[in-house]
């Protein structure tokens, strides 16, 4: 057998491996290596006073357990996630349901509804920061026309988190709207016809038919939006920097402060890993409990 034939035969047997190799290399470099490096870094002390990472075991994790700022930030993140995901999906559903009929100018209305999602988050945050401004912003101006003295929005510890929540819901409601609209359009028509013949009211059709049939779509939406809300950073960074006080300091912003402002890189790595584990196990639990089909295996 000539050499070229032998090489050919070898490739014949192992071509799958050859084709996978580039992708595996890239995965290895950009996912596996980074994760392993993160785990190692989380076991180290690495800050401005120590130029190289030094191994300190699990003391970063022990410090996290005692870190009140971490627990408060985590609690705030949970409140933020629950409120924003609920708000987005409920509002998205209402709008999608209301627009799921033949009306004139539907295309234009749908496009307008989607606009907030198309705006870059930082731009949206800058824009809302001006809207919220107590002395220059339009919101308090219109409130004053009604004789109401508007709150300080981002300037007060009691309203700052709600103000950020409103912007996040405004920004991501269109995503729920789009997904739910697609889901509504894909629903089988014959079930509705049967319901109509049986004399079901609109209310009954909605709760007994539409929502149960949309279950998979809604659960997937909850999963996707929760993942995104867990790592909310851009709005907080641009609008409040976590303030006033710590009232809008979510966990990702705390990790950013620790890692990139205070250069406590080992501790920040441990915090990120904790966030990752919370997400991972939270979602596994969610998927097992609800049976949402994320992976088709």
């Amino acid at each position, binding site marked *: 057998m000539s050499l070229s034939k032998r090489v050919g035969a070898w490739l*014949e047997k192992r071509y799958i491996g*050859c084709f996978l190799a580039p992708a595996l290399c890239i995965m290895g470099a950009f996912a596996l290596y980074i994760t392993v490096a993160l785990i190692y870094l989380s076991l180290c002390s690495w800050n401005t006073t120590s*130029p190289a990472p030094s191994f300190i075991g699990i003391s970063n994790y022990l410090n996290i357990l005692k870190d*009140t700022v971490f627990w408060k930030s985590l609690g705030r993140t949970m409140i933020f996630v629950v409120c924003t995901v609920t708000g987005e999906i409920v509002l998205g559903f209402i709008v999608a349901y209301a627009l799921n009929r033949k009306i004139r100018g539907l295309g234009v209305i749908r496009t307008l509804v989607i606009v907030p999602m198309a705006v870059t988050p930082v731009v949206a945050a800058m824009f809302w920061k001006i809207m919220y401004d107590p002395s220059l912003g339009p919101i308090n101006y219109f409130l004053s026309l009604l004789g109401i003295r508007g709150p300080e929005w981002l*300037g007060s510890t009691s309203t700052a988190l709600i103000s950020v929540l409103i912007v996040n819901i405004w920004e991501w409601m269109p995503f729920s709207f789009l997904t739910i609209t697609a889901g509504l359009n894909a629903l089988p028509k014959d079930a509705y016809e049967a319901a109509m013949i049986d004399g079901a009211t609109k209310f009954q059709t909605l709760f007994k038919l539409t929502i149960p049939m949309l279950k998979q779509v809604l659960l997937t939406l909850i999963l996707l939006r929760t993942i995104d809300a867990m790592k909310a950073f851009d709005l907080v960074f641009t609008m409040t920097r976590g303030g006033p006080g710590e009232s809008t300091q979510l966990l990702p912003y705390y990790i950013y402060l620790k890692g990139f402002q205070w250069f406590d890189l080992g501790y920040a790595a441990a915090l990120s890993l904790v966030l990752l584990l919370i997400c991972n196990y939270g979602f596994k639990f969610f998927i097992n409990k609800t049976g949402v089909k994320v992976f088709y295996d």
Partner: protein
Amino acid sequence: MKKRLVALFLAVIFCLSLITGCGGGDTPGADAPASDAPTAPEASSEQDPATLTEKDYWRQCEGEEIIFATYVGGEADYVDSLLSEFYDLTGINVTIEQYPEDQLYQKVQIDTVSGTGSIDCFTMDMMRMPEFASSGYLTKVQGYIDNPQFTDKEWYQPDDILAGPLSTAKYNGELYGIPYTGETNILMYRKDLLEAAGCQVPTNFDELWDVASKIHSKETAGIALRGQRGSGMNIYTWTQFFRGFGGEFFVDFPNDMTPTVNTPEAIEATKYYAEILQNYGPQGVANWTNMEVYTGQASGKVAMTMDANAFAAIIEDENTSKTRGLWGCAMVPGGKGGSWPAIYSHTMCINEFSQSKDAAWLFVQWVTSPEMTLKRGLKTGVPARASSWEAPEMKEQLSYICDGTYTDVCLESLQKADASYRPIFPNWNEMGDILGIAVQDVIAGGSTAEEALNKAQADIETMLKQKGYLS
């Protein structure tokens, strides 16, 4: 068979292109405009090279080449445009490398840690001085100043360098560089409003409160100070009150690093800071940064502030300010702890590992000389020498600011300012940020000064213990 081989070949090519695509192109700031800098304006004719070339020491490093790394900006461009004068004087070839500040210190850090010494001299933010000086990366320059072979004291006038900026170039009593710029805080007030209310310029915190209450109106807030949290934000201006009320950051910095940020003085200062803003400040001031403060001043929404002297040029500028011509300035008011103007400066340092330290010193000396400091100061407005602030050209150029009182106030403030305004140590940023959270929380009404500062004290103690400052 053949098809598979071709596909495999393509896959390899794809992979290789990805790998090469990832490398290279990582030279931030390499596109800094070095060659097309504006040529020296009218100032170049003022120099009299004859008086300089007489000094025989100027040419002792002829033919050497040095690199000066600094932050991107008009000042670096301006020095660059005058480099031919330095070359004619000394025969030393200087290359200026400009980087954004963060990259500059990374670059310098890599260069000094590895000991290569490819950057001979650089500018350094005052807050980073101790980190580099304590690691032995910076050359002590007092020896150069005292050696007549390298410095003609009569011409260089080292005593003319302002005390405030000079204190930022020192570490443990040793001088590690020469101030390149100097900025400070001043009190800026609306003369017309003070006059209408029949008030005198406040000199202490009681008078400040009194004036703020009298000039406060619905349209114009009596006073505005930074509220946004951050060691370089609200803490930069809050420290004026904290120190002014007699507060200290530590029991005995740097020997005993037990924080003292919840003492009665600290609580009193924070209460004052928050309450004067709540009562006579603009709405939403808890989120105000330096930008909102000077924009508020320029648009007529703010009547008084104690902030960076650089604001004065903005609020008296006819292109940017609605309130130009209405401002007065004075030293920042103080309390029982004295008056504490803030200080911020850059220092020009020489790399300990440089191969051309002598040439680098000649360059540092030339750039920070009275003549060059004045020329640079005319461009930037932040010279670090008394003679520059007193020079008729400077006074003339800045006469439009606060009726010409600006230069005298800045000079007095820079003489009085001290590097100990904020404690300079590697973890100050984190400590300042923790304090900033507390101060902003009080302004926004989230908690009382006592609660917020007790929490800050505990958080700072935990942090300092973790970092090994406290046992």
